[in-house]
């Protein structure tokens, strides 16, 4: 039953699931490198108590880390929410609820990409901090 449904959805969506599958592998390998480096910097090479507003201001003084964070934001959020979609396709047997979940995921993706991108791109430290 589950498999008939996914076969139908493959036919309906053309190559969408193929591109989704490929995206998960490619973005996964990129995220592996970028997220583990991010984690190492934030938790191993920098004492946690040093991470604060002034530290971020220094980090964002040039555009390098902003570009890095934008890439991680987009790849990470889309990889993660697409993963939630794949899991919900497996676990939610009602087509109606799957549509609801996917719609919610699109809204969450859009909102959080906008919130994240605007702070990374527009952050200007307050003077004197």
């Amino acid at each position: 039953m589950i498999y008939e449904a996914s076969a139908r959805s493959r036919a309906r969506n053309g190559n969408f699931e193929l591109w989704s599958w490929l995206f998960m592998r490619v973005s996964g390998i990129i995220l592996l490198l970028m997220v583990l480096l991010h984690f190492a910097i934030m938790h191993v090479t920098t004492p946690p108590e040093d991470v604060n507003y002034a530290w971020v201001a220094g980090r964002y003084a040039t555009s390098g880390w902003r570009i890095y964070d934008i890439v991680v934001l987009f790849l990470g959020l889309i990889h993660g929410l697409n993963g939630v979609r794949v899991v919900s396709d497996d676990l939610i047997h009602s087509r109606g609820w799957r549509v609801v979940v996917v719609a919610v995921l699109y809204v969450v993706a859009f909102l959080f990409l906008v919130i994240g991108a605007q702070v990374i791109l527009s952050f200007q430290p307050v003077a004197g901090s």
Partner: protein
Amino acid sequence: MGRWNVSVDRGRAWGWAVIYRGQTGQWAQLLHRITGLGVVLFLLLHILDTALLGFGPGIYDTVVAWYHLPWVLVIEVFLAAAVIYHAINGIRVTIIDFWDKGSLHQEAIFWIGVVVFFVLLLPTAYFMLVPVFR
């Protein structure tokens, strides 16, 4: 129980999951999903806390200081474990997908992944927990 009829041939229903004779790939996949869901939930939280930068140093420093509380650092070790596990198991799945002999060696690849997981996690956990004991 009708919804499990299809699955029962291949394994037995166990709560909301289906156990495919409970071998390593089954548990690796289940853990992959649990860690993935955990990490994406943290990512949403992390986007919100980072957005507080726009409200100035007072609010941001107050909220980010919570991440430095000892008991939160312990939770962050679990986050590190989830990220490391998800990354390594993702590589395992990718190897099985792209290497034509991958599926023949999937169990060996799993155990190699377990070793790499602990090799990466133990030093990371040590460095993360040093401030707790300071």
